[in-house]
């Protein structure tokens, strides 16, 4: 209590608190502290030191409660913190995703790293700079307003020889102050102090190209991934999955394991794993174990019946995120009606490496090493799963083998924690390729029905857009509730399914267009198997973007074609906001788009060339794409010749990094549109590796990709890493229509499907 009072007094006196606790510079250990070390107290959300530390050597550390999955988010954070502190970005280190050292900012989520996650760090850094300037003012005997800061040196503006550095000001002390915390954790967390962040016009570091920090480490094989964590006495484990989804082990014969040193099985209800001191032995044990599985009824329809199943299934929930005017009535009274349905399959995360986690569960505390992009959620989920207080669980994020949403990495910490408790040793669980494809969460398959009415002059009088789909969150997007884990579901834990599709306030398809009457609605249908399903659904990179924008922007193209209009002119006629128009103009100018109605020209040859366009928004970001393709009429193969992608995501922090993010997202979106489809039979998922779930090969990559960035210094940065994913499907399908006159309304656009569509035309 006394301490509290004196802290308050100190705060009143200086607006700041400087206590004599030496902070260790050079934070961020590559390997976390050994197991069994006492858990440190959690960083309190309302304190400056929880976000920013300035060290005695003139460097600073930012403590970021999200993670960087290889998109350079840490560099953007370093730039933003450096900007506010007036330090060179090279002197700012970033600690990420360690629950003992960072406040829960929600992990990687919704491409919110910069748009939301940077704000509290920016505010804390601004506060730190203000405190340092006030300390310098006292030291130099001038008012703070007479000082300026450059590269960590505070000097008197009128007499630059009078100066003091951050190093000299800090000495062995630790900068801290109370900040106003908004009471929220996760993406919405924010703190504010007395200081005002810099006006954007004064930015020197933000907006410049700064190279990524992890790249040289990765290229010289010096970067640790979660798969590389090893603890003394650690056991390697592999999970066993049923041949028929929903089956459970009814008999397990461990006799074959006797020949394998230290191998043993762990079986409880539907949970079955093997573990051994050596990894190869665990792999051999998984193959050797004799398991009899229950006779489970085949849970799935034939794949060929998937879309009929979706159409015919009872709706569990309906939502209407947008209703303007009476679109059905307007369509009923229209001179002409255009209608189409678009189908999109399940997609798999199929991360480059399957999920992996290490857990060390001890009576005195639990440590988890995870590649999940939401380590704070892993901490909370594992704590509930084990029935221990969250403060006793320390989760550390270590770079994972790719993460684009709630993938199989989110299941492994629960398996590892369960096994570590059962076996009394640290346990590393790594999934197989089969699990990475066959047992990860999937993006939901869907059918979109779109209808529009046109008047006699070809103007749109109303449009309805209805999605029917599996829930986007049968499995929650974070690991905070253990009921969403495979481990809990096979152990008979309860379920936590949410029936959601489009969120109110989320983007809506055809959003940029000023159609006079609009109805946007969705329905969800029940999962095919309610628990431990290899077709359970959750978020995948750009959730719902590829399917909804494929449908919306294909349909807008169909409207343009129905009215004999050039697809770009048709769009421009209906756009209302300057940012949408600017992106569309920028990409079509760069692509050299000549106005004419879409459709094949001249005699059909073997190879037909066409071009297509798409435009979309995503949470404040605007993206557009012009795709030029060549269709081989004989084989049905689509060759993408050139892509011009444009993006406006507000203020640009790091143009080089952004360019690559957009390019990667586009290639990934192209892969989903051209190649990807989860296959299954009545029993189980059958796309279980790269041969059965092909993705875009480098030989098929576009001949050229051009990225056009539009900087908006007056608009706060919005999500950058995902929006371009959604542009690929429609632009390619529209280009195929331009080349051949054939509409593709089902993804992916495989050669077989294109060939069939051409034959049916």
């Amino acid at each position, binding site marked *: 209590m006394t301490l509290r009072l004196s802290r308050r007094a100190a705060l009143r006196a200086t607006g700041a608190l400087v206590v004599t606790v030496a902070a260790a510079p050079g934070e961020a250990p590559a390997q976390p502290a050994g197991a069994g070390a006492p858990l440190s107290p959690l960083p309190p959300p309302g304190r400056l030191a929880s976000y920013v530390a300035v060290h005695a050597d003139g460097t600073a550390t930012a403590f970021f409660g999200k993670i960087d*999955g*290889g*998109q350079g988010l840490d560099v953007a954070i370093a730039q933003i913190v450096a900007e506010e502190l007036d330090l060179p970005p090279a002197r700012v280190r970033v600690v990420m995703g360690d629950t003992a050292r960072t406040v829960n900012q929600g992990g990687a989520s919704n491409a919110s790293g910069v748009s939301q996650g940077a704000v509290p760090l920016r505010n804390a850094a601004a506060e730190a700079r203000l405190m340092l300037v006030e300390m310098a003012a006292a030291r130099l005997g001038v008012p703070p307003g007479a000082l300026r800061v450059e590269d960590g040196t505070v000097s008197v503006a009128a007499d630059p020889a009078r100066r003091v550095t951050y190093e000299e000001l800090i000495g062995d002390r630790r900068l801290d102050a109370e900040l106003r915390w908004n009471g929220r954790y996760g993406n919405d967390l924010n703190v504010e102090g007395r200081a005002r962040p810099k006006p954007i016009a004064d930015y020197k570091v933000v907006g410049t190209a700064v*190279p*990524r920090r*992890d*790249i*040289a480490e*990765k*290229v*010289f*094989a*010096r*970067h*640790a*991934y979660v*798969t*590389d964590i090893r603890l003394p006495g650690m056991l390697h484990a592999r999970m066993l999955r049923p041949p028929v989804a929903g089956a459970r082990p009814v008999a397990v014969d461990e006799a074959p394991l006797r020949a394998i040193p230290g191998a043993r099985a762990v079986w409880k209800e539907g949970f079955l794993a093997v573990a051994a001191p*050596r*990894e*190869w032995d665990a792999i051999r044990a998984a193959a050797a174990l004799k398991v009899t599985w229950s006779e489970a009824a085949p849970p799935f329809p034939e794949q060929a019946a998937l879309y009929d199943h979706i159409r015919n299934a009872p709706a569990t929930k309906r939502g209407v995120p947008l209703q303007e005017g009476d679109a059905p009535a307007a369509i009923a009274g229209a001179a002409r009606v255009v209608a189409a349905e678009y189908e999109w399959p399940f997609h798999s995360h*199929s*991360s*480059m*490496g*399957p999920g992996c986690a290490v857990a060390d569960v001890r009576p005195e505390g639990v440590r988890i090493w995870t590649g999940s992009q939401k380590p704070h959620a892993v901490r909370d989920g594992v704590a509930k799963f084990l029935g221990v207080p969250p403060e006793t669980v320390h989760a550390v994020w270590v*770079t*994972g*083998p*790719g*993460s684009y949403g709630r993938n199989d990495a989110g299941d492994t910490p629960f398996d590892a924690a369960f096994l570590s408790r059962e076996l009394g040793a640290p346990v590393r669980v*790594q999934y*197989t*390729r089969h699990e990475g494809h066959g047992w990860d969460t999937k993006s939901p398959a869907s059918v979109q029905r779109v209808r529009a009415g046109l008047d006699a002059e070809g103007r749109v009088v109303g449009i309805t857009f209805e999605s029917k789909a599996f829930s986007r969150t049968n499995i929650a997007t974070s690991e905070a509730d253990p009921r969403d884990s495979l481990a809990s579901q096979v152990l008979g834990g309860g379920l936590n399914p949410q029936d959601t599709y489009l969120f109110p306030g989320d983007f809506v398809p055809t959003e940029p267009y000023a159609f006079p009457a609009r109805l946007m609605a969705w329905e969800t249908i029940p999962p095919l198997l309610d628990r431990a399903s290899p077709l359970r659904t959750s978020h995948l990179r750009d959730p719902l973007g590829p399917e909804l924008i494929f449908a919306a922007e294909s349909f807008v193209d169909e409207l343009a074609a129905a009215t004999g209009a050039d697809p770009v002119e048709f769009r421009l006629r209906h756009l209302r906001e300057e940012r949408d128009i600017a992106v569309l103009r920028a990409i079509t100018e760069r692509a050299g788009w000549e106005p004419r109605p879409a459709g094949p020209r001249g005699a059909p040859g073997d190879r037909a060339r066409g071009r297509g366009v798409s435009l979309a928004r995503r949470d404040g970001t605007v993206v557009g794409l012009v795709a030029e393709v060549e269709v081989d009429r004989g084989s049905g193969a689509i060759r993408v010749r050139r892509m011009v992608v444009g993006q406006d995501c507000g203020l640009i922090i790091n143009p*080089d*990094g952004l360019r*690559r993010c957009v*390019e*990667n*997202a*586009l*290639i*990934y979106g192209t*892969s989903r549109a051209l190649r990807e489809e989860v296959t299954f039979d009545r029993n189980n998922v059958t796309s279980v*590796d*790269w*041969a059965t779930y092909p*993705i*875009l*090969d*480098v*030989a098929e*990559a*576009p001949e050229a*990709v051009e990225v056009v960035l539009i900087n908006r210094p007056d608009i706060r940065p919005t999500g950058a890493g995902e929006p371009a994913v959604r542009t690929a499907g429609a632009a390619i399908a529209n280009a195929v229509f331009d080349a051949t006159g054939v509409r593709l309304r089902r993804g992916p656009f495989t050669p077989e499907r294109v060939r069939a569509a051409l034959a049916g035309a």
Partner: protein
Amino acid sequence: MATRITFRVDGKDETVTVDPDMPLLYALRDDLGLDNPRFGCGLAQCGACTVHLDGVPTRSCVTPTSAAEGRAVTTLAGLGTPERPHPVQQAYIDEQVPQCGYCINGWIMTAAAFLRDNRDPSEAQIREALTGLKCRCGTHMAILRAVKRAASLA
């Protein structure tokens, strides 16, 4: 039956006593602590585990350790260092290629061997040489730029 197997790894003689059928990937990772070859599929489908075996890009996830007996293994760590980077490594940095980076052993080790044998490749030859390797983050375009750049550096 565990067997002694001796080979050179990144210029150093090493001996492991392992099941000779165990894939080389696990000998490198678990017995020698060389983490950079990575497990991606275990099926020779992705390239994440690629090393050079006597200079030939080899998928260590399906190569028995016994096949390395008496031979020279080079991993990404042995290809070059920050002080003496291999041209493909340098180009990877110049082009800021990796996103998660989990795939890079396949691309860099395959490209390094390809450029050694093909001094002035066309873009089509580069694509052909790299076909089959996987990158889930979608860095394909940056990879192609980097390999072209490395061809001009080499």
